[in-house]
């Protein structure tokens, strides 16, 4: 699972909003299994992520991630992927799963937004 992806600092769409004005730490994906959310545990990011999730993801994954449909229920990411959860998340949103209905968000949402959304998702994981 070597990848040349470099998760770079966020530019673009949402950078003008004050709460996103600071560049996030650079996460290198040379060793994707070690991929880590730069905002992990940050409650402000989780709250912002909830709002972004509800704008961009909820049409398929349900508002506040309360999806009744198991394949689309992102509260089960930790149960499914455990420590690989960040890596699977990042790979999926930046490549899509076209045959499952998941678009590739590259060029639409910058990495900062993706990790902000991920911070929210980490806060709503169901117990195994």
């Amino acid at each position, binding site marked *: 699972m070597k990848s040349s992806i470099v998760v770079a600092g966020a530019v673009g769409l949402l950078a003008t909003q004050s709460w996103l004005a600071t560049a996030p730490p650079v996460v290198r994906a040379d060793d994707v299994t070690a991929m880590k959310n730069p905002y992990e545990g940050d409650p402000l990011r989780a709250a912002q992520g909830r709002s972004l999730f509800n704008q961009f993801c*909820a049409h*398929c994954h349900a*508002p506040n991630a309360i999806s*009744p449909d198991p394949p689309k229920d992102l509260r089960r990411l930790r149960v499914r992927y455990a420590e690989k959860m960040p890596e699977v998340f990042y790979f999926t949103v930046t490549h899509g799963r*076209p*045959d499952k209905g998941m678009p590739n968000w590259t*060029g*639409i949402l910058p990495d900062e937004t993706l990790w902000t959304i991920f911070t929210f998702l980490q806060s709503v994981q169901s117990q195994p």
Partner: protein
Amino acid sequence: MLRLSAILAVSLAAIAALPVAGFAESGKSWIIYGGDQANTRFSTLSQVNTSNVNKLKVAWVVQLGSLEAQESTPLVIGDTLYVTTSGGPKYVYAINAKDGTPKWKYAPEIPADVQQTTCCGLDNRGVAFANDKLFVGRLDGYLVALDAKTGKELWKTQVVDYHEGAAITSPPTLAKDLVITGYAGGEYGIRGAITAYDQNTGKQVWRTYTVPVAGEPASETWPGDSWKHGGGAAWLVGSYDPKLNLVYYGTSNAAPWGASERGPDKSDYGKFVNLYTASTLALDVDTGKIVWYYQTTPYDTWDYDGVNELVLADLDINGKKTPVALKADRNGFFYVLNRQTGALISAQPFVTVNWAKSVDLETGRPIEVPDKRPRLDVWAKDICPNLFGGKNWEHMAFNPQTGLVYIPTFNLCMDLVGKKEEYKKGAFYLGEEWDLDKPGPGGFMSEMLAWDPINQKRVWGSKEELPIMGGALTTAGGLVFHGNIQGWFKALDAKTGSELWKFNAGSGISQGAITYELDGKQYVAVVTGRLKTPPSFLGHTGERIFASSAEGGALFVFELPN
């Protein structure tokens, strides 16, 4: 063919003989999605009626071989029943209408990635039939003609590139020698169009865009380039009035849902009404020219699509028989329009409505409650109805004998806020955050409503605990049939709403039932298979819906015991 001619003769005779009722009605067969060109879903059959419906039992069942989102209305032509499945469709089946024996199936290759550009489930609502041909629109943007005897593909035409975020979910409208279709895509910023093709060749005859290009009439209703991704998708079925030579289609929400790029982002929107979104359009059959339009939700930001089916009827309005079109709109108002001129006759709320006080009969415009219009980064809370609408695509039915319209309604409210969003081809383009899991007043979430369209008032209601109930069928047997999301299929008394019979079909029922007669026996048929995507919008209520019945895909056919 002889049999069909006889059926047509019967239904033509019925049209001529009708006094002040439905402008057409189905005979012994079910030859068109809405039961007749007027979309009434009324059947003249009365062998099954209020006195014996409690004896109804299953005659046979066909498994459809596809799960999720069964939204198909079967057709019955002669002794053949045609039914499509979910999956865009995954299959079109021709089966013996008497015992369910398969005759042929059509299994198109539909690319799996249509899931990305299909907002609300991998559905298909059925086929249209004429001259031994079936016409079916597909989620990959193609319209195809099939030989009704063999299922062989006769021609295939691309209506729209699905990569744009478009899909065809509903059967086309047939008028003269044309096959007319719209497409979905209001959630992806497509520009809507209605297109007519030659039934024999699939060649395009005309195309009318529902959103004008800059410089065209009505383009002044869009600021800047906002028209380019303005929505106005005609994704549900049309209606046809052969006498007026008009075909009618409704159009979806303006795109994106968030309105800040499409106008001044306030209730005092002036000229920025974003034509012809959230409207009913009357098109000349021969040219596609827009003869009249009526916009139900100007400058929409609530996702109040204007697509709901028009039911055509001739009603006594102030002592004068008037050709009307009836529409129970997503926005919660029931509209009666003169279908010749487009003039508004009346509009009243048929569910709890609080985004607008009323509809001004002079201007035809809703009088908005400004607090209930979400704006950029400003929440509007507890807006009723929610974006599923007072009614969605699930069909209503008009019974000329009771004079009532039977409407499958929602009782849900929502919170919305506008957001900035960039357009990208094929991606969701909503520009709003939303919370839909807000039951309306009264503790129920949907209701089969009997509505008097002349006096614009409620006559009775049959409440359902969970939302997303099935469409209606009404018959000369004094009955209203409908299903619910838990999978119960019910017969109600058309006059009182009292429940006369029910059957657990095991998976949610969304589409309306049909009825037909073969060899002197009346059958009632309904497709089951619970929806997945729309319930997912509802959070905890969605979890209750998923718990209430399993996914499925089956056609149930009922009869009276011999």
